[in-house]
């Protein structure tokens, strides 16, 4: 696929999705503003570290995933982009090429929404450190890519892909918050866990899931038969 085709698909779809983009960003800004900011004080510093991570990570990951699923499901089969979908299906493009181009659109939308979420938190005084924001973003992107395959399925299979997207978010959340408890325990006076195990495991997990999900989406798109309903 040439770059012009990919760019044209992305720009055309983004133009059609501009309301969705605005809604996603507005929702992210509001939820980022309203999210509880309380950080536990006192008590065991390591337990406090886990609670702090939870405050940093839970909101962005689960809200971002929900947003990613909604944006992904809006990408195909809703009748909203029928002319565009027909052009793409009729065009001399391989399924994997089309998958890459069309997957970029929800990824761009959720990335902008996640950035806005983080920015609003930063302005209101409690944003996750950049490393944890990257973990949230990686999780949201991976679960969005998983949810994309739901647009090509119906019934239980569709539900399964949506559930898998939330499953990815849950595993990623557990790794990010509790992963470091499995690694080397820092000295008592350090006051918090090392970040290495959590950060690396989430990034590796999300990279693997995103790669597999995009590949699966490409395969499914190549086999997809857009037959009209009765």
């Amino acid at each position, binding site marked *: 696929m040439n770059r012009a085709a990919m760019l044209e*698909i992305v720009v055309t779809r983004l133009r059609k999705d501009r309301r969705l983009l605005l809604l996603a960003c507005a929702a992210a800004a509001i939820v980022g503003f309203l999210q509880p900011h309380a950080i536990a004080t006192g008590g065991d510093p390591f337990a406090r570290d886990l609670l702090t991570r939870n405050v940093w990570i839970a909101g962005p990951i689960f809200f971002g995933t929900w947003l990613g699923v909604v944006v992904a499901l809006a990408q195909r089969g809703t009748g909203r982009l029928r002319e565009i979908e027909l052009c793409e299906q009729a065009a*001399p493009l391989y399924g994997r090429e089309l998958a890459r181009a069309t997957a970029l659109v929800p990824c761009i939308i959720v990335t902008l929404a996640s950035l806005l979420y983080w920015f609003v938190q930063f302005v209101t005084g409690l944003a996750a450190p950049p490393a944890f924001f990257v973990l949230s973003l990686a999780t949201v992107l991976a679960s969005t890519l998983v949810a994309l395959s739901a647009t090509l399925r119906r019934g239980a299979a569709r539900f399964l892909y949506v559930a898998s997207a939330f499953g990815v978010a849950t595993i990623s959340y557990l790794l990010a918050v509790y992963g470091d408890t499995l690694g080397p325990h820092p000295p008592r006076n350090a006051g918090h866990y090392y970040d290495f195990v959590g950060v690396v495991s989430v990034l590796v997990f999300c990279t693997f899931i995103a790669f597999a999900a995009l590949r699966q989406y490409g395969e499914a798109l190549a086999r997809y038969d857009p037959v009209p309903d009765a």
Partner: protein
Amino acid sequence: MPLLEMRDASFTRDGTTIVHPLSLHLERSERLALPFSSTREAATVALLAAGIVKATHGRVFISEFDPRIQPVQAKRLVGYVPYDAVAHEFATFEDYVTYRSALWAMDSGSAVDLARALLARLDGVHEAFARPLIGALVGHPALLVLDRPLALYAPQVARVTSGLAIFSTHASGEQARAFEDAYARAATPA
């Protein structure tokens, strides 16, 4: 080698046969207007002929290409015109042609020029049909697949498709005959 060949091609979904086994042959520059028992079957056969839907049983060949194995090569030879009145998802006609030319890896300037020339020759055709027809033709297909075209537009279609192989699907024998007759009358020099 025929430009379009179906060998007992059928399509089934969830246990329901949508397209019953169908065999056909279409050579270059030939026309074939086929009636079907339902609009869904007619629409699906058009999608099969365009390489967009793959047969669940039997084979479909577009020239020497099997759309299941060589979808890109097969789709390069076909221009597909859907039946449905299209939503206006592009701000202008030029935007639509530019979009299509990018997907077909063509120069957008010459595609827009060709599209404008075709539009001028499709006087009286509703935009909902003219736009996808022009979109299909700017890709320089060898085979044009029309999903349930109106006989009313056959003369204008004949004006812009001389030399192309045309395969059209219809929801009844009467509609197929009406389209074929109107096209033949328009294509035959007075």
